[in-house]
């Protein structure tokens, strides 16, 4: 199969490896090293998509990141990858891509009717039209706009690809391997600096690959090959291709996205698709080069109109002709380089130069080659719908205002060059305020805010000699600062054709009576008239104009459109560009896939999973787990076909009747040690701690300084200066930080140390009337009688040869103990408890039964201590010492906290004794009251009381203590329920607390 536009003797693709791929279902082939763009152009395909707003035909405009149009959807293995730039994506065997934003096909697109309705789609149309009637928005307008707009379609399936993150440190990060990047990397690496050189494209060398230049007596391509080979062999250098440094963040942190296997058919299972590098660099050299600027003329978005540098790169790198009758439209010498490449490869170009009498080495060369050149000529409009067929050209007057001699000439592509725009995005992201350089009509970086320097054409240096000299010097200078070495390498000689300055002309006036669309922003369909309209409507700030017209937005970020847009605004406003300023450049410079940002932290890997040492036992015994922070805890142990409700009821009942065991390993545990530990606890907790004897536990509540309850738990005095503190599972980390804060910053004079021991201890709560009998069998050598081990007592004991700690504390309200052993013995302890407990009808119980037990006892937990309650609200005021000061005490005397009708916890029982009250329900006096119905409070926790066999809830309501006995209503608008209820004491079961002391 021949490719009509492929040249035989030029290019860097691998002619020995043919690759086939499909585009819109049709099979094409290219060579290894081709991009989708180069392979399609080689096959004569230029129509690849439809534009964003008007659905005008779209072709290729650039050759890399500069491409605003050719955005495709990639599909492989039933996975979709949207917004792929055809100019960047390399082809691989079996690649499938299709056009976006067109229906039913790219050749016949119904949406193109927008092009004929363009008077309805002016700038900001979405603020003006589709407004009335309002009810139409959701059902008609929005679905229609959503279907019509936007590019690719994201996959809704789980992305099975692998993405990785990498952290790297270096002396010097260099972004781009063009002449300045290579030279500075070489100089710095030779001077001993640890260098990372990042190149966005697959091939290193940047403009050296396409320019007709000579460096150190070699061609540009040869020299770059030599340098890169040497850099790769050096141990202090990391060289990465297909890697875009897209973001410059604080303190010289840059982020780079490496496309590892985007260009490969998936073969290796563990090879990541992309890798995100977080690079902390001591110094950064930004050598990101420059992007050619378009010239603005009628229908300048027609497929076949493209940047002249892109046309040149297609020839030199890919061996592909973008057309066989090229028209070169330029305001500077760059267009001549492209024309010469065409000519050398057997194609006759016509050059239209906006300048009147330019002269330079390269113009002379073009003339000598016999290339036809028309001076003071412009393209007025491109002709042809899906592809350029001809162009209206005209002579332009010296003042660039009037056109004459308009004629139509045949051509199949128009290569434009409006000079060069430095890519200052990274410098701008680093905080560098740019300045306008009149000579090149573009912004260049000004003063570094961070440790960065911009070099080469990104800094507005457009001659190779200047670039190479500057880069060698900077590479040495910067590395010398870091390594203090003095190894200077010699700078190679440079031969290039001298060029003259560019013409400041950038926009062709409309001929009389014509209303061609002249596009500024090719990706977002922003034309000259849109900007004019925005300014007429009063938008002045460039940031506002941007948002109103969408100029410079989306994935393109104004790479080709920015300066022409500014130029137009300043022309209309009669200002100069620097007065207009430019919009802020924000990361990412090019789109980054969400997968790469997320990395390996997907699904269960998004946070660590903590399991207790008894986890396997739970699994084997049909535990259904629930996430408790990062912990996995058994919610209930399923027997047969039991539901959650049935299982939790069975487990809770068994605790009340016999004995149950619950895994409480997840409770936060903190060792508090030191001679001042008692004093410290006395300041942290609301109650008194100075007189707690060794071998005793105490329940404590700690507040934040604003008086709100932070956490609760028991703390046990293990020995004179050693306390064992427990916290709730959820607050464990916060409590430790809180304690460290006070010890390190507020009371450093206290001689106390705290350390987390959560993971050191495995815990089992044994609860129920049979628990003591069970304990006696577990610890036959220890006296666990009520006298020897009373409520809130503590004992160290021997569990079949394993040292154990017994705390007589109770969350369930039953006679209960918590046994702790070192984590590694956790499973041993658990199995012993189950084994020995059999004769006492022991059952393991999960968090659901645990909740039921504590709710009907009126014990508060996270749902009551929710960051809004003070001790009084949770009926914990008895624990608030009046004698001593503690964290948050002063806040408790503020007026809102001392009001007599302050909220208080109560119990709630439905009058019918059968309807469960949804958690979060409001308690109201009158369910039929006018909205908003004044609420007295809310239901914080609900359960099925196993003691009384009816629903029971806890609620925190206004003036709670005086509401007991009242008949009110629980309303859940969410569940559409209104339930008549009676308010009772929150201590529904065993209000005197006899059982725990039994």
């Amino acid at each position, binding site marked *: 199969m021949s490719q009509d536009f492929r040249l035989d003797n030029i290019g860097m693709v691998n002619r020995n490896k043919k690759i086939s791929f499909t585009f819109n279902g049709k099979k094409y082939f290219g060579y290894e090293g081709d991009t989708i763009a180069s392979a399609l152009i080689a096959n004569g395909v230029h129509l690849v998509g439809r534009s964003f707003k008007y659905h005008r035909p779209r072709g290729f405009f650039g050759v890399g990141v500069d491409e605003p149009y050719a955005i495709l959807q990639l599909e492989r293995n039933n996975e979709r990858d949207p917004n792929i730039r055809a100019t960047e994506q390399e082809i691989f065997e079996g690649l499938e891509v299709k056009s976006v934003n067109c229906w039913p096909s790219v050749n016949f697109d119904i949406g193109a009717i927008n092009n004929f309705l363009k008077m309805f789609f002016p700038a900001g149309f979405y603020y003006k039209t589709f407004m009335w009637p309002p009810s139409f928005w959701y059902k008609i307008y929005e679905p229609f706009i959503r279907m019509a707009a936007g590019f690719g379609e994201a996959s809704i399936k789980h992305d099975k690809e692998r993405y990785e993150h990498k952290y790297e440190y270096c002396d010097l990060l260099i972004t781009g391997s063009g002449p300045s990047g290579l030279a500075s990397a070489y100089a710095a690496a030779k001077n001993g600096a640890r260098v990372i050189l990042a190149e966005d494209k697959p091939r290193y060398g940047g403009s050296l690959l396409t320019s007709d230049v000579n460096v150190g007596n070699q061609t540009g391509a040869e020299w770059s090959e030599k340098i890169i080979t040497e850099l790769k062999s050096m141990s202090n250098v990391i060289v990465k291709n297909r890697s875009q440094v897209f973001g410059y963040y*604080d303190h*010289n942190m840059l982020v780079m996205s490496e496309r590892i296997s985007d260009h490969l058919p998936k073969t290796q299972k563990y090879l990541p698709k992309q890798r995100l590098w977080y690079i902390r660099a001591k110094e950064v050299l930004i050598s990101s080069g420059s992007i050619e600027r378009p010239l603005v003329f009628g229908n300048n978005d027609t497929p076949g109109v493209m940047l002249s540098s892109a046309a040149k790169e297609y020839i030199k790198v890919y061996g592909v002709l973008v057309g066989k009758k090229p028209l070169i439209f330029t305001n500077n010498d760059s267009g001549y380089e492209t024309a010469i490449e065409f000519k050398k490869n057997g194609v006759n170009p016509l050059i239209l130069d906006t300048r009147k009498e330019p002269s330079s080495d390269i113009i002379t060369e073009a003339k000598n080659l016999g290339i036809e050149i028309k001076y003071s000529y412009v393209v007025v409009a491109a002709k042809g719908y899906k592809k350029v067929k001809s162009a209206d050209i005209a002579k332009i007057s010296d003042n660039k205002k009037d056109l004459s001699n308009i004629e139509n000439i045949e051509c199949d592509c128009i290569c434009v060059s409006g000079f060069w725009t430095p890519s200052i995005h990274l410098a701008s992201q680093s905080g560098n305020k740019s300045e306008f350089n009149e000579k090149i009509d573009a912004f260049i970086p000004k003063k570094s805010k961070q440790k960065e320097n911009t070099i080469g054409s990104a800094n507005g240096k457009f001659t190779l000699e200047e670039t190479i000299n500057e880069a060698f010097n900077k590479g040495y200078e910067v590395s010398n600062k870091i390594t203090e070495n003095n190894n200077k390498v010699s700078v190679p000689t440079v031969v290039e054709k001298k060029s003259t300055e560019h013409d400041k002309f950038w926009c062709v006036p409309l001929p009389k009576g014509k209303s061609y669309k002249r596009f500024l922003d090719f990706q977002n369909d922003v034309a000259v008239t849109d900007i004019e309209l925005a300014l007429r409507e009063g938008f002045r700030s460039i940031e506002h104009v941007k948002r109103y017209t969408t100029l410079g937005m989306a994935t393109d970020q104004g790479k080709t459109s920015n300066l022409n847009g500014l130029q137009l605004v300043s022309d209309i406003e009669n200002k100069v560009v620097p007065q207009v300023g430019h919009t802020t450049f924000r990361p990412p410079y090019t789109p980054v896939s969400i997968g790469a940002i997320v990395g390996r932290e997907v699904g269960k890997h998004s946070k660590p999973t903590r399991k207790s040492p008894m986890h396997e036992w739970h699994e084997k015994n049909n535990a259904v787990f629930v996430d408790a922070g990062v912990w996995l805890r058994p919610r209930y142990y399923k027997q047969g076909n039991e539901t959650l409700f049935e299982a939790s009821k069975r487990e809770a009942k068994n605790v009340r009747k016999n004995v149950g065991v619950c895994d409480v390993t997840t409770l936060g545990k903190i060792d508090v040690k030191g001679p001042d530990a008692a004093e410290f606890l006395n300041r942290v907790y609301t109650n008194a701690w100075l007189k707690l004897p060794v071998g005793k536990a105490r329940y404590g509540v700690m507040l934040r300084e604003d008086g709100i309850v932070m956490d609760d738990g028991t703390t046990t005095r293990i020995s004179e200066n050693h306390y064992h503190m427990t916290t709730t599972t959820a607050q464990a980390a916060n409590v430790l930080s809180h304690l*460290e804060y006070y010890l*390190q*910053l507020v009371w450093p004079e206290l001689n106390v140390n705290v350390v987390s021991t959560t993971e050191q201890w495995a815990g089992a709560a044994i609860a129920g009337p049979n628990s003591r009998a069970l304990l006696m069998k577990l610890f036959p050598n220890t006296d666990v009688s009520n006298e020897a081990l009373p409520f809130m007592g503590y004992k160290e004991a021997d569990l079949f040869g394993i040292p154990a700690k017994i705390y007589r504390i109770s969350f369930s309200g039953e006679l209960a103990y918590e046994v702790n052993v070192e984590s590694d013995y956790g499973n041993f302890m658990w199995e012993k408890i189950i084994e020995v407990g059999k004769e006492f009808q022991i059952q393991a119980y999960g968090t659901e039964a645990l909740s039921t037990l504590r709710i009907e006892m009126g014990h508060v937990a996270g749902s009551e201590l929710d960051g809004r309650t003070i001790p009084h609200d949770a009926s914990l005021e008895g624990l608030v010492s009046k004698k001593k000061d503690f964290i948050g005490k*002063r806040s408790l005397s503020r007026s809102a906290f001392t009001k007599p009708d302050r909220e208080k916890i109560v119990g709630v029982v439905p009058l019918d004794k059968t309807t469960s009250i949804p958690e979060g329900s409001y308690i109201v006096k009158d369910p039929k009251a006018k909205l908003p119905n004044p609420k007295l409070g809310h239901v914080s926790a609900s359960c099925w009381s196993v003691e009384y066999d009816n629903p029971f809830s806890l609620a925190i309501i206004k003036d709670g203590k005086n509401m007991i006995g009242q008949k009110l209503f629980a309303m859940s608008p969410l569940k559409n329920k209104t339930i008549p209820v009676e308010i009772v004491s929150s201590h529904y079961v065993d209000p005197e607390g006899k059982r725990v002391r039994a």
Partner: protein
Amino acid sequence: MLYIFCPHCGSRSQNEFAYGGDATVKRPELNKEISDQEWNNFVYLRKSPRGKHLELWHHISGCRQWIKVERDTSTHEIFKTYKADELTE
């Protein structure tokens, strides 16, 4: 992402630290009579200066020490870091 010099560990990335607020706030002494206004100022009122600011950071995934960091709130420049008990300038 900031690069913070921990006086105990050396320079570490921001994601090892937790922000701890204004380091110039001084907790009133225990057992001291104090007006509602003074207490309110301590609990709630914070300045949010543009420019140099002394703030607390907790090296939570490192040495677990609270440190003081003198940072410019608009440029993020870090001038100096101090141990918790070190006197600041």
